[in-house]
């Protein structure tokens, strides 16, 4: 087994019997059926868009002590890896649907740095007074008004110079238009309040999805 470091803390590439795996260093048990290799947790790219971005992104940055606001945490698949990375930080994990929240609660009980919030990301005022200013807002919600939701949450919680990662699903914006056209419209809108750092296509793991990285002001 060979362990190769990456640019991101607690993220490694593992070579096991000639196969390569993206992993996070983790003392915790699997959360979503992923494999464990003594002390490392497999990051399944087909299950986590952030995994694909981490593997492909040349600019992506996450630090161990970061405060992170995660919108659309679902059952905590990606949160479990972010919690491995930001092991000295805090993740505010927001999810509005009660059923996947069960999984998120299970994760939060295990991890000291995950704060689960059953709230609607469209109403940031309902968790304003719980969530502090953060270094990163990560958003994965396939909704038509997701950019508006991101802007509002940034206004409430992203620190000046903070960093944003937005997962955009073209089909959720408009199922008939050309994805490239949708992406450029989304970027144009984001440029009103943010600086676009990079965008990464998530094919073939996640069809018609891109990740957009932005800086605040």
């Amino acid at each position, binding site marked *: 087994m060979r362990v190769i470091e990456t640019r991101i803390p607690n993220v490694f590439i593992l070579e096991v019997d000639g196969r390569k795996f993206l992993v996070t260093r983790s003392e915790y048990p699997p959360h979503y059926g992923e494999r464990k290799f003594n002390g490392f947790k497999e990051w399944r790219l087909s299950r986590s868009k952030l995994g694909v971005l981490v593997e492909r992104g040349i600019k992506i940055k996450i630090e161990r002590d970061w405060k992170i606001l995660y919108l*659309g945490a679902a059952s905590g698949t990606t949160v479990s890896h972010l919690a491995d990375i930001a092991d000295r930080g805090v993740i505010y994990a927001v999810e509005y649907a*009660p059923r996947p*929240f069960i999984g998120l609660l299970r994760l939060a009980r295990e991890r000291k740095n995950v704060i689960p919030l059953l709230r609607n990301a469209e109403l940031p*005022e309902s968790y304003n*007074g719980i969530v502090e200013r953060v270094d990163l807002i990560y958003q994965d919600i*396939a909704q038509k008004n997701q950019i508006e939701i991101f802007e509002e949450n940034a*206004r409430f919680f992203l620190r000046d110079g903070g960093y944003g990662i937005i997962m955009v699903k073209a089909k959720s914006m408009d199922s008939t238009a050309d994805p490239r056209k949708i992406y450029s419209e989304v970027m144009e809108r984001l440029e009103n309040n943010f600086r676009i750092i990079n965008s990464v296509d998530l094919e073939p793991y996640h069809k018609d999805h891109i990740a957009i990285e932005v800086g605040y002001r």
Partner: protein
Amino acid sequence: MKVWYGEIKDDEFRRKFDLDVRNERPLDFDLVGFAIENSVFSDRDEYYETLRELAIKNEERRMKEILRSEDMFIISLIRAYDDALKCVNLLSERLYDIKSLGYEDEESPPVAWLEDRIESLKKLRKELEGELEEKMLAVAPNLTRVAGHMIGARLIERAGGLKRLAMLPSSKIQVIGAERALYRALSRGKRGKPPKHGIIYQHPLVRTLGRRVRGKMARYLAGKISLAVRLDYFSGRIDDELEMGLKKRFHDLKGGSG
């Protein structure tokens, strides 16, 4: 201003733990720093540990409340809505009878009573529908987007709950509400013609199509409803793609049927 560890009023701070906060404007101070300065917590570790434990407890309680009664409540709401509608119709009919005998409300108090109660029952129906829409969006957001809150609620009622609806094949969803027509067709063997649609006929994208393509649309809609309900029941994630595919199919069929 209320934050999770207390209240700040006219520069006075009172400590009180409560996650039910609401602040319309971004805070202009450091939430964590302020708590430590006011010795609510001795350090950051204690701050986060307390918040995390409180969040787990509080949000779990809220989650259970939502999960416990959600779909049964919706079933009761839609039935209450139908009851109110039935009452309005019955009383309106009776009022019409009385009026056609020549009585007007100046001379007959019952006419005014009836008119008054019918109005308030109509209001009740509106209120129930508003509540139903809100609950449907919370419990089954994808189903509500695809089928609308009324049809969605009816489907949940007929299936006997969200879980049961999620387990049904889409071919069954297509004919929910047309059971008589379905069994008549089945009992006739090969000569029988199964119904095109049941409850979902009320959907504007089905109802407004020509008869020859309505069945195609109903089948497509039932498929999307099935996907939506499963997403609602098993995952809870919202997917706007379902709804948009529906409109596209509608326009294709509309164009084709000319």
